[in-house]
């Protein structure tokens, strides 16, 4: 899972994140899963924020050379 984070699209990451938030908000959510969910949500939030605000040099290079 960790290795693939870089390759995730924003849409994939945000979709998975939404799914996790939904699960966590379910009153039936087991307290045993909280830790895993929280960890994954944190990773995904990081992925999403990076996609929005950090420069993707590879993409920049491609467009510059178009």
């Amino acid at each position, binding site marked *: 899972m960790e290795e693939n984070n870089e390759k995730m699209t924003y849409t994939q990451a*945000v979709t998975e994140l939404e799914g996790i938030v939904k699960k*966590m908000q379910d009153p039936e959510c087991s307290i045993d899963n909280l830790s895993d969910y929280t960890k994954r949500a944190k990773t995904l*939030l990081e992925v999403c924020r990076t996609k929005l605000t950090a420069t993707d040099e590879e993409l920049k290079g491609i467009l510059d050379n178009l």
Partner: protein
Amino acid sequence: MANDPNSTPQGISLSEFNQRITNAIATSRDTQGQWVRGEIIDMRVNRHCYFELIEKDDAGNTVARLGAAIWGNTFMALAAQFAAVTGSQLGNGMKVLVKISANFHKAFGIKAIVEDIDPNFTLGDLARQRREIIERLTREGVIDMNRELPWALVPQRIAVISAEGAAGYGDFMNQLENNPYRLKFYTHLFAATMQGQNTVPTVMAALDRINNNIELFDCVVLIRGGGASSDLNSFDNYDLAATIAQFPIPVIVGIGHERDVTVLDYVAAMRVKTPTAAAEFLIGRGSDALVALDQMQNAVVASVRDSLARAREQLTYCTGVISPAARRVIDTARTRLDGLAQAVPTAASAHLTAASTRLDHQVELLRNGVAQLLRTQDQRLQMLTDKVALLSPRNILNRGYSLTMCNGHFITDSTQLHEGDVITNHFKNGSVRSTVETIKD
């Protein structure tokens, strides 16, 4: 006729002849101050405005043509009014209703001098053209295609079509690069001419190049200068509109002004008024996404807090439930006992009362029975007494019988006696002592 030198007319100079034409035209009311319909081509402005006014037949062939001029001061006034009403600058390809007077200049020939333009005629014609294009796109089922495309959640990779160095392009780029959320955007400019007759071919070429690299982009932004000289008429083009309508990624069009609408505005996924607004739209998508991320982060934190709070609450609840439950069991038992305790005396007293009543009854019966018994015994006793009295020896003696006794015993049998025994006979009124002489059987 011309052979005879004497009869050869002197002729008049061309300028004199032209002057006559000039005079003839100037005095003919039919050619002065007339409202004439036509289409503008080959327009050029050099303080004065010059163009060719033409008429086309239904097949598109030019069937009439006349050079026209709008003199400087008139042009400034008419152009401003025209732009105000139509939202477009006077330009090539426009159908106009102009008030013209024929003017024959002896050096330059005949020209139509424009005195007035009715902008509403052009407005109506532009609207009609746009309507026809829109109707055709609708009929062909493509009008909504671009608008119905899904957007990237955050469009960051943007193909820009604009004139290189245009003020609007600069505004757009500045806005994107200096956005306060530090959102990252990736742009590539596909330069095109954004006014005049080259507009459609260069924009189409740019779209074609974008299409060849379509996987690199989230959307297209079509923006232009922002200068005053707008020639939106160029964008009211069926081919361009159809291409944008069917373009595989959303197109943002920012070519109009406040009151302008071109057909592109009807087909593009997003219409904005200025290049800056286009940038703001994109930044808005990004900042919305950042807000959504913040909200999700808060939701995660809140969920953890809630889950823990819920778990704690559950524990507290369980603890709270156990002792009341126990107490309830005890209470129930106690209540039952109390009930029983109360029920016992009640039941017992009921039993006692019944027993007592029964007992009283028995006593009564007994009493009656005893009395009865006593009475019966009493009567019997009386009877016996009477009988005894009747049978008493005294009564027997009274009836004349006598009682014989010997040595203190009653003698009821002769064998009890022996000769010589002294016996006593008792009578009712005394007794006799005698000695036995003989005993006979």
